[in-house]
């Protein structure tokens, strides 16, 4: 029983990491349809932001709290710049976008290598987050995982509120559902695109901060996560936040339960096979966006 509960929690915490790294993509890929291979490098930018901050703020806890909004701004600004310089010229050419952003991804990795050095670095975790909470019966929840879970849920909640309740959210949804109609209704679609990309990339930065609690910070850390992030969005259904949330947690639990009873490699293979089978059955993903657009 303890094993099952422990593994479920592990699965949920893996799901929380997946959700955080995929959340930005649900906007840029899910809503806007941009295949941004440099998304992983925005995660990296967020992680390095934490690292740099820790040099000037000695308290690990304070620097983590400052890093969250700052990483959002740094990664968001990088995303907005990328959109402004390259992606907006390629909206009708998705495959070119893929190649161009992949090139950008390689350049950003090299840049990180030149600035921070090739070896990976570490951010210190606040003492509060290195321990664990014992809930009796031999069960323990790691504090860092609880923090990531809370952060992921907070981000989902914030994003949902923005999309549902704010004028900006209404404009984003309008552009996604029918760009032409939105444009003739007086919405500055280009500006909405840039803002959407800013928020999506910024969320990648937040994910980067969270990832410093579980692993190292390095130039190639983004590439470790980018495939998983796309998987979550594709399986969840393009353009649907709740699809991504459910998928992230489902994949997390599946992975951890399989990993416990078999090995890491077998679990990965089974999860991938399950995803392929699922997409055969539902190519559109878990949830689909119904639009009235003719395109």
């Amino acid at each position, binding site marked *: 029983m303890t094993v099952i509960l422990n593994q479920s929690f*592990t699965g949920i915490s*893996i799901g929380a990491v997946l959700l955080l790294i995929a959340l930005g993509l649900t906007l840029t890929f899910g809503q806007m349809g941009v295949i941004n291979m440099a998304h992983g490098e925005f995660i990296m930018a967020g992680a390095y932001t934490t690292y740099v901050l820790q040099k000037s703020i000695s308290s690990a806890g304070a620097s983590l709290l400052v890093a969250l909004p700052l990483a959002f701004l740094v990664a968001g600004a990088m995303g907005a710049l990328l959109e402004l310089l390259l992606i907006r010229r390629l909206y009708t050419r998705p495959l070119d976008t893929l190649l161009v952003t992949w090139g950008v991804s390689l350049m950003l990795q090299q840049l990180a290598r030149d600035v921070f050095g*090739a*070896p*990976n670095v570490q951010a210190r975790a606040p003492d509060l987050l290195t321990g664990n909470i014992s809930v009796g019966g031999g069960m323990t929840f*790691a504090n860092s*995982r609880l923090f990531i879970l809370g952060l992921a849920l907070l981000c989902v909640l914030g994003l949902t509120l923005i999309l549902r309740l704010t004028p900006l959210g209404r404009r984003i949804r309008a552009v996604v559902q029918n760009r032409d109609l939105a444009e003739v209704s007086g919405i500055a679609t280009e500006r909405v695109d840039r803002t959407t990309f800013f928020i999506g990339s910024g969320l990648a930065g937040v994910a980067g901060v969270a990832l410093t609690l579980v692993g*190292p910070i390095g130039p190639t850390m983004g590439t470790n996560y980018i495939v998983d992030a796309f998987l979550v969005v594709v399986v969840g259904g393009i353009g649907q936040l709740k699809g991504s949330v459910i998928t992230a947690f489902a994949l997390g639990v599946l992975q951890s339960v399989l990993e416990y009873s078999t090995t*890491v490699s077998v679990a990965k293979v089974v999860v991938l096979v399950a995803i392929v089978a699922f997409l055969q059955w539902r190519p559109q993903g878990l949830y689909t966006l119904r639009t009235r657009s003719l395109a």
Partner: protein
Amino acid sequence: MSGLSISRRGLLAGASAVGATAALSACGAKTGSDTTSTGAQADTSGDTVKVGLLNSLSGTMAISEVTVHNALLLAVKEINAAGGVLGKKLKPVSQDGASDWPTFAEKAEALITDDKVIATFGCWTSASRKAVKPVFERYKSLLFYPVQYEGLEQSPYIFYIGATTNQQIVPALDYLKKQGLTRLYLVGSDYVFPRTANKIIKAYAEAQGMKVVGEDYAPLGSTEFSTIVNKVKDAGADAVFNTLNGDSNVAFFKEYKSAGLTAKSLPVLSVSIAEEEVKSIGTQYLEGQLTAWNYYETTPGAANEKFVKAYQAAYGADKPTSDPMEAAYISVHLWKEMVEKAGSFEAAKVKKAADGIELDAPEGKVTVDGATQHVYKTARIGKVGSDGLITEVWNSGKPIQPDPYLKGYDWAAGLS
């Protein structure tokens, strides 16, 4: 086709060497008499010779390999300051293997055929060594490999300066057994070294009455260890034998601490974590954990004091020194001794001169074993202290004879 281009390159090298020799003789200098007979296309005609340094200066392995590269450069600098080898200064030529095994093979070939290096030093992962092995054998050029590895290999053109299994893993198991830690959980990265090492550990455990209660592999670079740590926790092990490589160690030890496991409750013995890695993982995650190597920064002796001082003077006072760095450092010095004993840079003659070469190394006395092209080394078990340095808790007393195929161990008969 490639044969043709090689011979053409060889011809060019020969021609330029002859030209250079002629020019020098004209000036009255007498040198380069052994040029044309030198193994590959190495060029020894001038007053400098090139040595190749082949390390990953980028990618996931850069964390470790850059420090080895630094140590190699330091050794080259020292040798040049002392007058060089056979009167010739060494000119280091660096190539970046980029943590990518085919790139290693490509760069190895470039070093031998384009740069015409006299010998090459480097490689870290066994995968990169296996990738360059055929290249060095084809061109009959020498590689000095500075890292502990899984044994079961003996290339005629590689000198193995790091420990083989009977100088690191077997003593580590002996140590655990002596401490009464007999139920082991094996955690490793998913590639050739951990898989082979664990095969050896399992054979040992079976013969020595120890028990392997679990075995898990994570892909190189993996950062998700929560499930593996849960399995370790539930398996009822006395100790964890860790063969994870590179950055995965960071995620593993963070998770380990988060799960409430400590060096007291369930010690981890690691074979790929040295001072540099301790520093980057974070001392608070590793304090009290065990490592198995042949050298620590804290190893006593004048040779080590000199090495640490020279390294820190060159690269920064806060930079630690580690076992692979030390092995890299002595590999260049050992090569120098071999060349001077042979009186020639020629690979075949250097190999012949290798047996019995001794060096008062930072790790203690080392002796080259000509038959296996490995080195006699002292095994040392260490414990990570609160200052991030590793202090020795046990050593083998004297240098252990290298036995890459574990021929001297009955329980290892089934391995190959």
